[in-house]
Each structure stands twice: as structure tokens, then as C-alpha cells.
């Protein structure tokens, strides 16, 4: 597709369940970011993938959060044993990557609600 695609757009889950959020970046973009926006808060950096380099996981809030990027394209963010404080909009962005002066292109996000 022409833009960054995220699925699902909305996810309601029960506390303690695992969830997987998917991101399809723009074709050819080697950099991929995950951010989250909690209610009334800004964009919190979670993780950054750049090509074949080891991902920058410095923003992941706990070891319940993990992400992978298969084949340098699609990425999945997994949250294990979800908690109510995990409720937020999870945003994925991609960019051409590696050249500096990069514009990020965002998906519409996944609204996660943990009951």
C-alpha cells in the first residue's frame, strides 16, 4: 500500500491476556519505529529498527513488551500479560532510514483498551 498500515485499528482485551499489534511499513523503508500515546500524554518512544542492525529497545517500559521485524518489513509488537496501564494508542512509523534528516510516516495507530 501507499502508506503505513496498522492492524487492528482497535483492540479490547482483558487484563492478563497477550496481544499482538501489527505494522506494515511503506515499501522500501528500512527504519521502523513504535511509539505509544497514553490518554493526555505525548508520543512515547518504544523501539526502533534500522535495517539489519540490532534494534534500539531502550523505550520498552517492561519485559512484557517485545517487538520483532521479520524480513526487514512487517513488525509485530507483543504485549504479554496486559495491564490496564497498557491502554493507549500504539503508533508505528517508518522512514527511508540511515541517511539522516528523516521524515517519519505514521500509521493511524491501534487503540488498545485493557479492561
Amino acid at each position: 500500500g501507499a502508506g503505513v498500515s496498522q492492524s487492528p485499528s482497535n483492540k479490547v482485551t482483558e487484563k492478563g491476556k497477550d496481544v499482538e499489534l501489527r505494522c506494515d511499513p511503506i515499501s522500501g523503508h528500512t527504519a521502523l519505529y513504535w511509539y505509544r500515546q497514553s490518554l493526555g500524554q505525548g508520543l512515547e518512544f518504544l523501539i526502533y529498527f534500522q535495517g539489519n542492525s540490532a534494534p534500539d529497545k531502550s523505550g520498552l517500559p517492561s519485559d512484557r513488551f517485545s517487538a520483532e521485524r521479520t524480513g526487514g518489513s512487517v513488525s509485530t509488537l507483543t504485549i504479554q500479560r496486559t495491564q490496564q496501564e497498557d491502554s493507549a494508542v500504539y503508533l508505528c512509523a517508518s522512514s527511508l532510514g540511515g541517511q539522516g534528516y528523516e521524515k517519519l510516516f505514521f500509521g493511524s495507530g491501534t487503540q488498545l483498551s485493557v479492561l
Partner: protein
Amino acid sequence: DQQVKQNSPSLSVQEGRISILNCDYTNSMFDYFLWYKKYPAEGPTFLISISSIKDKNEDGRFTVFLNKSAKHLSLHIVPSQPGDSAVYFCAAQGFKTIFGAGTRLFVKA
């Protein structure tokens, strides 16, 4: 540790007047700065950017100013229009891109 700070959570401006949104950063290694605009239920969209070698970049009604010595940048919108009402995020880029908390702009007709 907030590396990018937007200290005003909201701003209200009359249509036709200037809107000024401010952003401060702490890391002198940042070399590229961007502003994004976000409407509810949508992802942020790119608005304007500036590299650290410049102090001003203009695009239509939008101008971004960078003061490197003060580690401060600002976004000017003039004239402001009701359709500009949105949340504006400042971002700074070094190895990765870090966003501020956002400023919600209300433009009153």
C-alpha cells in the same frame, strides 16, 4: 528524562492571528527537527522541518525557527485558521527520533 519538551499543553488563538508553539531540547547531538500535526483518531502527519545548519525554514503559513545556542525551536502559524486546530508535536532527530508531549492548538473563528 525528557529530551524534548513542549511546556505548553494547550494554546488558544483567534482566527487570523499568529500562533506560536514552542519546543526545547536538551541533547546537543540532535541535528534535525520536525513538527508534526495530529488530528483525533489519525496518525501524526509531517508539517515542516529544519536542519541544525539553518535558523529558519518557511513553508506557506508555517515557519520554524531554530535557536541552537538556546536549544529552542518554535513554530509560527500565520494567519491561523480554524482547520489548524490540532495537536502539534515537536520532534528532534539524532540517532533516533524523539517527540515532545505535544501542544493542543485551538483556533477560534
